[in-house]
């Protein structure tokens, strides 16, 4: 029997739930069972798993029953469950734990790939450059190449100054 979620691997976890007068069965492979958090059969709803990809369950788990509230906009975890939308950009930090699993089931990856606003891109490039220079400076000092070290030091000064002005704007 194949896993009813990935439909690839052999199902080894078999669950049956009786709700009212209806019986539901789910057959999962070990990996899917793990990602869906099905290690405690009493603590999850089959309907959830079948219909909502375990979305509400993941949220529930992360929240641990406690009411989380966004400090900036006052949006609560219950609001999220009801609307399926968040309150403000800050909510992504507030509810990050709950969102983690949700994003994993929804998207291809969990880290952004693609366009970055130009101001941030510049800052990022500069800080990358800074890190590289500091490394080079360390190496030069180690090698007692003080002529090179002086050049790196001056450049670090310049980059630091540019970084400071670019993050202000």
């Amino acid at each position, binding site marked *: 029997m194949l896993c009813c979620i990935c439909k690839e691997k052999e199902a080894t976890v078999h669950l049956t739930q009786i709700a009212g007068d209806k019986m539901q069965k789910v057959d999962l492979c070990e990996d899917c069972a793990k990602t869906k958090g099905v290690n405690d059969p009493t603590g999850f709803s089959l309907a959830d798993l079948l219909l909502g990809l375990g979305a509400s369950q993941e949220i529930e788990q992360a929240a641990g029953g406690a009411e989380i509230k966004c400090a900036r906009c006052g949006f609560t975890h219950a609001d999220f469950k009801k609307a399926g939308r968040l309150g403000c950009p800050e909510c992504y930090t507030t509810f990050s734990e709950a969102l983690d699993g949700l*994003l994993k089931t929804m998207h291809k990856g969990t880290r952004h790939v*693609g366009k970055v606003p130009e101001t941030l891109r510049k800052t990022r490039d500069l800080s990358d450059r800074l890190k590289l220079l500091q490394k080079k400076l360390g190496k030069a000092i180690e090698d007692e190449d003080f002529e090179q070290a002086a050049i790196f030091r001056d450049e670090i000064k310049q980059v630091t100054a540019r970084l400071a002005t670019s993050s202000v704007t």
Partner: protein
Amino acid sequence: MDIHAFLTPPAESARRKGPYDRIVMSSRVRLARNLREASFPGWAKKPERVRVLELIRPAIEALPDMKDAFSEAMDSLSTLDKQILVERHLISREHAAKSAGSGLVLNRDETFCVMINEEDHLRMQALRPGLQLRQAWTAIDQADSNLEKKLEFAFSPELGYLTACPTNIGTGIRVSAMLHLPGLVLAEQINPIIQSVNKLGLAVRGLYGEGTEALGNVFQVSNQMTLGESESAIVERLEKVLGQIIEHEENARGTLLEKKAKMVYNHIGRAYGILANAHSISSKETMNLLSLMRLGVDVGLFPGVDRALVDELFILTQPAHLQKQHSEKLSAEERDLLRADMVRERLRHVSRPIAKPPPPQSPELDKTEK
């Protein structure tokens, strides 16, 4: 400003041409953006929504692409106006339900349309006739880069652009095309196609987007995932899949004409018969029959008839467009009568389909247009 004076007349917009437009009716790329320091529209109170609108609207109007644009707050548009914009696929049904604190900016040639305070602070879309996803992406990318000089968008290095709904997070992009697929429907191949497209992580929806029916054999195909894949990779993937769907549709048409020509002619002939002679017809039936007539034009059963005639009727026969042509408020039954009158009148000079079409045109002809 009057939206009706602004919108391109249906006769003209039905004549817009693009690559592969016998199957791909239009291409669209949408970006979702939000301001860093404001609550999302669905959660913000009215004063905050109004403040956001007042901040964003001038920034949009100032874009070079928005010269001579139509710009209006949603509460100053009538229900009918909004419905017309939905029927033109310029705004979503959700946005049509919005009033105070939401807005719309639409450029002169209807290729760039921005919804303010829909689900996100900004939903901007680039529209093109035919298959032109890359062009649409380039255009919207540029507009977005221009805007970020004036507005500070909510962005996280890990999660990308932050959106009200977690399903749009990351790139905030939705790349989509509207496809006319009567061949696949008649050949009963549409369901397996939809299923395999779904398996690739793409969504197939009806004529008006999420949760709508595929009226008139028109389907929207779009990406679903927005996090973990770059914009250009998504555009490329869509292009590839659309290319395959186009091929399947052409093949289905070819096979049908070869093996089940009578069935196809029968459908098209009956569609013409009803459209040209009915005295009462619903919007849904009209769409479905016009789709068959469009197919008839494509396969050469209506020599001398331009596809634009059918495409114009696609627009004009929809409820709000029909209502707009009459000053008094029409009931659904009255609309059905007037719709039938209009279609009969328009088809008065269209001869019935010929019994046997000229030898089928190879799909290559269409490709050379590109």
